[in-house]
């Protein structure tokens, strides 16, 4: 069975109050009862004592037999030896010789006569069944005993009434205690209800930007839960945002890549279909079609290469090999010259600029930059490598058409081509460069070149003490790594 914390607390409080009320009122009633009985006993003893004194002073029971006494007694006038005892109310005062009642004050309810040889307190029942409290005193001078008695009814009635009052007050206390607890617990738990409402809203709306309300009067326990909930929502939200952003980027990339591949495939398909549907095509037309087909196929391959280079770019730097940028520049220039013999590609600057990173990635980046320059019609391309305090710099200048200033930021994104870019370009070249540099914790900036075209500046962090000879494990003490110096080029 599940029940609310609130009702449990109220129930427990009610039970505790009830227990306390029972104990306290039982003790109070018992004390009251005891005191009342003691008082009654004391007054009976006093009365009996006074009556016995009178009897003894007046000469024993004989004096008590005086008819006058009975007469006065019958008339209810308190005169004579026992006169001052007359006005006794419901009490009974009897003088006996141990067997017969010699005289009595008050109405005899028909109780047995107490025996002289059994003095002291006793409880007696009268003819009507009521209980009386009785005290008997025996005279030392005569065979006379005095009995003082009073009914216990008033006392038991008072005790019963007290008990009833205690029960009523106790019940009220229990109800009041439980209700107050219920109310206070509700107030104390309201922040928890707010938290629950927040959690339910998040669940219902899937809106992770919701936060738990925390006001200053919220108990610290609840505030701790709220801030834990908030922290969890925060984490979830940022994780979800990251995932969504990555997914969106991947989705966009896939769509763009698909678009980029559909275009050459469409041209190829049309050309293939034309060849199939026209078996008797004249040789010149046939040749043109096949040349176009081959060009489209090459374009497709180039785009696949670029896509894969881009995919690798982000992973590249994790390889963390020792790379000499000057060597890479030299190799790139040689390769570019082999492909475009009319272009002039020169390398200047420091003879050795060593960084830690991916040789393949950096080579791909530089290949793209030099290749771009040549493809866009630059006749001279200048590559400058230099090393600063903590940054290695690679600058590629060309005398081509350049990129307008307002497009320079944009063209670093995948599939974005400048307004004046070649249509055959994949739109991925600069994205690959940006990806590689990002993976190396570096920076790319595009600028006007003094040669008249575009200047691309790559900056990659480096360490001055790092040299080609320090091998791939420049960090740990020399001599620990005894394996082959992977990736390090000597000479």
């Amino acid at each position, binding site marked *: 069975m599940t029940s609310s914390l609130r009702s449990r607390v109220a129930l427990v409080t009610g039970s505790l109050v009830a227990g306390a009320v029972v104990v306290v009122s039982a003790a109070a009633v018992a004390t009251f009862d005891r005191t009342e009985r003691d008082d009654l006993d004391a007054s009976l003893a006093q009365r009996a004592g006074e009556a016995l004194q009178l009897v003894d002073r007046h000469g024993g029971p004989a004096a008590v037999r005086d008819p006058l006494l009975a007469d006065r007694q019958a008339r209810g006038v308190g005169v004579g030896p026992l006169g001052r005892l007359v006005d006794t109310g419901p009490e009974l005062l009897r003088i006996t010789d141990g067997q017969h009642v010699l005289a009595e004050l008050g109405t005899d309810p028909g109780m047995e006569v107490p025996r002289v040889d059994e003095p002291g307190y006793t409880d007696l029942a009268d003819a009507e069944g009521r209980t009386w409290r009785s005290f008997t005193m025996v005279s030392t001078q005569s065979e006379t005993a005095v009995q003082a008695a009073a009914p216990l009814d008033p006392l038991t009635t008072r005790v019963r009434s007290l008990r009833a009052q205690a029960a009523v007050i106790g019940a009220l206390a229990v109800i009041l205690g439980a209700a107050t607890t219920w109310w206070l617990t509700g107030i104390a738990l309201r922040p928890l209800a707010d938290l629950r409402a927040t959690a339910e809203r998040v669940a219902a709306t899937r809106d992770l930007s919701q936060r738990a309300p925390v006001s200053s009067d919220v108990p610290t326990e609840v505030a701790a839960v709220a801030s834990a909930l908030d922290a969890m929502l925060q984490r979830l939200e940022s994780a979800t945002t990251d995932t969504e952003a990555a997914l969106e980027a991947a989705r966009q990339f896939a*769509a763009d890549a*698909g*678009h980029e591949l559909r*275009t050459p495939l*469409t041209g190829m398909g*049309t050309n293939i279909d034309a060849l199939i*549907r026209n078996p008797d095509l004249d040789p010149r*037309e046939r040749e043109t*079609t096949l040349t176009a087909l081959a060009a489209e196929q090459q374009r497709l391959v180039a785009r696949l290469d670029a896509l894969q280079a881009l995919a690798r770019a982000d992973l590249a730097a994790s390889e963390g090999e020792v790379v000499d940028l000057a060597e890479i520049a030299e190799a790139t220039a040689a390769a570019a010259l082999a492909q475009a013999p009319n272009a002039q590609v020169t390398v200047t600057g420091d003879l050795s600029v060593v960084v830690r990173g991916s040789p393949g990635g950096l080579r791909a980046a530089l290949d793209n930059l030099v290749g771009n320059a040549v493809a866009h019609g630059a006749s001279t391309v200048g590559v400058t490598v230099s090393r600063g305090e903590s940054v290695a710099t690679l600058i590629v200048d060309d005398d081509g058409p350049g990129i307008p200033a307002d497009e320079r930021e944009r063209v670093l994104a995948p599939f974005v081509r400048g307004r004046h870019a070649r*249509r055959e370009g994949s739109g991925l070249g600069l994205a690959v460069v940006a990806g590689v540099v990002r993976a190396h914790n570096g920076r790319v900036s595009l600028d006007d070149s003094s040669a008249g075209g575009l200047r691309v500046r790559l900056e990659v962090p480096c360490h001055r003490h790092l040299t080609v000879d320090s091998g791939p494990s420049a960090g740990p003490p020399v001599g620990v790594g005894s394996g082959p110096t992977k990736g390090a080029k000597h000479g």
Partner: protein
Amino acid sequence: MLSRVLVVDDEPAIREALERALRLEGFAVTLAGGGKAALAAVAEQGPDVVVLDLAMPDLDGVEVLHRLRADGVDVPVCVLSARDAVDDRVAGLEAGADDYLVKPFALEELVARLHALLRRRPRPTAVPLSAGDVTVDPLRRRVRRRGRDIQLTAREFELLEHFVRHAGIVLSRAQLLEGVWGYDFPTDGNVVDVFVGYLRRKLEAGGEPRILHTVRGAGFVLRPEAQ
């Protein structure tokens, strides 16, 4: 006389390939490398049919269609979409294109569609037709439903007219492609579904009940309500 096709695409390689292929298929082909050039070419040359790429940097295909149709030019247009996304085709067809193909496509398919788009359909009768609460006036190209005027593109109008002429008869996608588009070759009937969707939207825009029903496994039917 050769049918004149205007091919509009911003990719030179695709333009050249289509020029050669369509020329070899017996079309007189002219080319335009962008949206603005396409509008100029339509105005100057009045081609019989247009093959229009949707994604172009200067003026995209949808905008070209809007301008053509707004000027009252009802030359048949087949749009080429480079993305296999429904949005692109929908945008093109909604703007008044008659059909679409997703790149890359089979040349045979393009040629068959162009022939169908070029085929002269008999002029409709001048008598207004009606089915249920829909009235179609072929001469004035007006459609009314329950007193409400409904604006339709040329192709939407022809499809609705076909449905009204054959009210109560279930028409398969192939029958609709042949009757409305003139396609007598097997092709995917998706264009029918897209246009039926447009017609429903426009016919029910005033809260009217559905009159064009899908018959699962069979096709579509215009069912005038029992009155």
